[in-house]
């Protein structure tokens, strides 16, 4: 194909290869270290026989040598300069600045307008310009070489020397350099025993190989990009509208109502953490001290540079401003959200159940006992759901290879299973926060709302609808791909669908029972007669201790469940039995606490401690031992509590026993 010369010819010639944005001539202006390539590399290799360097780590320490380029490597044979006497290529270590050879000055010898750059002084000595000035950046030296008018193959003279070039040596070096001219272009060097300086005359390398068209044949393969560090990740993280817009949107939408106009670089979290980012946090500028607080908040919710480097592959494809996720990923994310919600609901139900006085009667009806029974059973069902959702996640986890798993895991360290408790119920429920509340009318109405069956046309609005949509996605995927479905083969899909069906069916019952309870309890208006009293007086030490035990039991329960989920031991009857016994022991203790007017707090474990399983487990064991000791020493006044707490702790300790 003939070589195109003008713009329309260049545009006509479509090279089937990289897109136009990948052509060097289209590379963006900030090309040092650059987004597609490090342009400094051209000038580093501009003079065959020498490899230069323009920026290095020690430039801050020594201002005097701050700006001069250094010689990273010199081919003594090619240049005719003897440095160490051994011939061949001599390279200088990056971390040994004392050994550097510096480029003190350079001049072109051929071409229409020869120029001289004295880097040691940084004056330019050409006819038609410029004021003498001090360069501000080391890159000024690079730019000087870059802009030096010298034809390809034209001669260039460089004065190179050690860092300690001064006195007589310096004078001689300078004299030799200043003596250079087109007619007197000869390489020479100091006659000292140890190398001091050299005036090197080389020919400027071609920009393009005339035969192959290869850009800058002088640059070794890989070098154009070897010094790029991670610029594209940094720019990808930092740049906003108008720059990366086509490749990295600032704002996208997801599918759910909570994902309208969300930040593309947000940390992808469970829905209960997806509180919309306020505008002042979104746009916080770290360059302004006044925005420090918002910047700190921003760092919590957006990817930092490390996240971008590590996880950029997990960023979703965006089409028409909407993040596109596979069915698999959508189902996994919904299940992870649901796990958190089921966990939160279980706790809310447990607390509400404990808040009801078992002795409450209304018109002869043992309404208190009935209400407790309904709520307890629903709580247990939610616990089942919590477990089953995680079992489904574990089944799905097993469909992935390790590489894909990383792409979909919530973090590099976790599995797909979720033991965290939702902090809120997301946009489907108006971001209502999780909270332990007594069974007042408002609470019961909230339970009824969340258990309400979904209406057909807005299937995702309610809990049941979320499960239905998951079942539908799995079914569609399986219908399309059979045993190759992303959710596994027929057996796995059947298992998953059965669990979902069970969850939906149990949920049906909840709504009816709760609605009936409402009628019975609140038919005559809002009242709280059915509730246990909560004491306002601060809890005694023993009660506080018992509450600590309750929390620890709760944490151990979560730990045991999480461990079981990760192992995938859904058939581990022994472990399940342990956990059920622990649950019952905790329930008994909590009942006593509620009776005393100091209900269990259900404080969730600190997320920072749950990141690492082993240390968390060790911490829990230590806490159990510490509580046992404490129980022995106190609890004199609360014998009943001690009788419940002690054995409960023993049960907790057994969770680590092999089954």
């Amino acid at each position, binding site marked *: *194909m*003939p*070589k*195109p*010369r*003008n*713009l*329309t*010819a*260049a*545009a*006509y*010639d479509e*090279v089937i290869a990289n897109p136009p944005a990948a*052509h*060097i*001539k289209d590379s963006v202006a900030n090309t040092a270290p650059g987004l597609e390539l490090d342009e400094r590399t051209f000038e580093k290799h501009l003079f065959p026989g020498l490899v230069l360097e323009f920026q290095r780590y020690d430039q801050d320490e020594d201002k005097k040598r701050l700006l001069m380029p250094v010689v990273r490597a010199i081919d003594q044979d090619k240049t005719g300069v003897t440095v160490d006497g051994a011939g061949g290529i001599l390279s200088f270590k990056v971390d040994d600045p004392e050994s550097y050879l510096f480029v003190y000055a350079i001049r072109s010898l051929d*071409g*229409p*307008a020869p120029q001289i750059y004295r880097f040691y002084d940084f004056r330019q000595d050409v006819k038609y310009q410029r004021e003498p000035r001090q360069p501000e950046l080391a890159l000024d030296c690079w730019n000087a070489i870059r*802009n*030096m*008018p*010298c*034809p*390809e193959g034209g001669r260039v003279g460089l004065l190179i020397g050690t860092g300690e070039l001064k006195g007589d040596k310096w004078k001689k070096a300078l004299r030799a350099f200043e003596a250079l001219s087109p007619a007197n272009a000869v390489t020479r060097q100091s006659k000292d025993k140890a190398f001091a300086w050299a005036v090197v005359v080389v020919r400027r390398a071609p*920009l*393009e190989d005339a*035969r*192959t*068209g290869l*850009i800058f044949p002088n640059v070794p393969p890989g070098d154009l990009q070897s010094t790029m560090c991670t610029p594209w990740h940094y720019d990808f993280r930092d740049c906003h509208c108008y720059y990366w817009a086509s490749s990295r949107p600032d704002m996208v939408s997801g599918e759910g109502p909570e994902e309208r106009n969300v930040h593309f670089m947000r940390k992808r979290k469970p829905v209960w953490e997806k509180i919309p980012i306020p505008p002042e946090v979104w746009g916080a500028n770290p360059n302004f001290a006044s925005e420090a607080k918002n910047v700190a908040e921003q760092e919590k919710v957006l990817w930092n540079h490390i996240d971008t480097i590590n996880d950029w592959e997990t960023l979703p494809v965006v089409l028409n401003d909407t993040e596109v996720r596979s069915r698999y990923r959508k189902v996994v994310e919904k299940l992870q959200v649901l796990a958190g919600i089921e966990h939160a609901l279980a706790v809310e139900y447990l607390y509400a159940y404990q808040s009801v006085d078992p002795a409450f009667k209304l018109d002869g009806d043992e309404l208190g006992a009935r209400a407790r029974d309904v709520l307890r059973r629903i709580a247990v069902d939610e616990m089942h759901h919590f477990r089953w959702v995680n079992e489904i996640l574990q089944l799905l986890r097993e469909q992935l290879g390790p590489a894909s798993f990383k792409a979909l895991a919530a973090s590099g360290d976790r599995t797909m299973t979720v033991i965290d408790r939702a902090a809120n119920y997301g946009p489907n429920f108006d971001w209502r926060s999780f909270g332990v509340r007594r069974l007042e009318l408002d609470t019961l109405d909230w339970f009824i709302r969340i258990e309400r069956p979904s209406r057909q046309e807005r299937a995702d609005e309610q809990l049941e609808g979320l499960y239905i949509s998951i079942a539908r996605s799995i079914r569609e995927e399986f219908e399309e791909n059979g045993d190759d479905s992303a959710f596994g083969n027929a057996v796995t899909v059947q298992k998953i669908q059965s669990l979902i069906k069970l969850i939906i069916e149990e949920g049906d019952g909840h709504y009816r029972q709760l609605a009936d309870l409402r009628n019975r309890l609140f038919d005559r208006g809002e009242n709280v007669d059915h509730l246990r009293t909560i004491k306002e007086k601060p809890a005694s030490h023993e009660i506080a201790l018992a509450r600590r035990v309750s929390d620890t039991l709760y944490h151990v329960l979560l730990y045991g469940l999480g461990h079981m989920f990760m192992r995938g031991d859904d058939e581990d009857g022994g472990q399940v039995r342990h956990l059920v016994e622990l649950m019952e022991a905790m329930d008994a203790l909590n009942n006593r606490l509620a009776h005393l007017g100091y209900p269990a707090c259900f404080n969730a474990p600190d997320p920072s401690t749950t990141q690492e399983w082993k240390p968390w487990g060790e911490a829990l064991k230590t806490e159990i031992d510490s509580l046992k000791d404490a129980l022995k020493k106190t609890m004199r006044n609360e014998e009943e509590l001690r009788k419940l707490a002690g054995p409960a702790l023993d049960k907790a300790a057994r969770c680590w026993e092999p089954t």
Partner: protein
Amino acid sequence: MDGKTAEAGCAARPVVVPRLQAELKLFRSALGHHALVVDGSRVYDLMADEAAVLRAAITPGDAAGSTDSAALLADLGLLAPAARRRIALDPIEPPKVTAFSLNVAQACNMGCAYCYADEGKFGGRARLMPQEVARASVDRLFAEADADARLVLGFMGGEPLLARTLVHDTARYAFDKAQRLGRDIGFSITTNATLLNEADARLFHELPFVVTISLDGTRDVHRAQRPMHNGHDSYQAVLDALAVIARVGRPKQLAARATVTARSGRLLPLLDHMIGLGFDDVGFSALLVSPDPRLAFTATEFERHLAHMIECGEKALAEIKAGRPYPFGNLETALQEIHRGSHRPLPCGAGAGYLSVNAEGRLYACHRLIDDPAFIMGDIRVGPDTQARQKLLNRSHVDRMEPCSGCWARYLCGGGCHHEVKARGRVACDYIRGWLEFCLKAYVELGTHFAQTGSEHLSTRDGASAIANVPHMVSSPR
């Protein structure tokens, strides 16, 4: 030879590209062989063997190519189907108007023998444009153009500064209107500069004016060709105007336009002289239509003119390569067009984005066709006549013209000035081709020069500096 042997021994059918010589121009430079692919005005470098292959493929009449040329022709898109052509014979829809010239003074204070405009009267009576017509023209221009279009308002004549007050008033009116509406507007004026005063210079300096002074060269040449009615020295008047401009401040661009007649002689001394006067741009315009036919070029006289132009071009190239400004407008414009790959089926914007207004407010295709009923294009009161414009553009399509449709230069030339073609036919084709061939050569040589030296061109025009960044790095795998 029997049939089978004949069949076995026959070469494949040659590739035939109809009228290849109209689609491909081969040329040489100091660097070697090159090609201009006419559709798209694409310029390529060729290896010697490629040039030989293509030369063999181009023969008079219908081309009979060879199988050797098939791949190369395909690479260059010369075997591409009609659907891929950049210029086709589809009907041209007139674009929205963005430029008006106002003939504010159909009268003149000079008696140039060659004046196509009959000293501004265009064959009619001398008259000045009323203010209401001028302002209405401005309003019409704003109304017709898109809101984000750059508007151009030109002042023509005769000598426009005979209607100085109108020029000032209309320019200010238009500029203020543009400022208010957030529109972008530029102005132009072509003047003999004999009447230019400080107020005029101030106007040209304050508003974005491109001022073109008609100056035919050295004092002697200019005085001989451009006498003033009052007998004053027209050349000195230009110098005086330049002094005023220098004192008050330069306009956005100050250009000189020299009319070259068949008697003008060597152009280089004239060019040197005018560039020396400090113009941003100096251009020659060969006279084709003149009341005195002795002054207009004949086809044979164009040969000499071409030589003179090339002499100027060679000088310009030498200066450019030496890094010195030498704003020879004809060359700069051509370089710019070649670099961009301009390709168009029409010679200019006449009747398309550009219309000219006569003193009464009637619209004509351009300032040279004022009062010519064959080129009337509407009226400022009711707006441009789209049908008339469409007819003009479609009948002027260069692929419909002869001999244009068979000429390799047609998409760079566009078919020639409507006014000149109507009056004289196409007598300058060889000259145009010769000049363009020179410019193509200049383009590739300059491009390589810039690539090798890395120097910047110091021209004030974009032509050569546009190719300072010639795509030397653009290289397709060979």
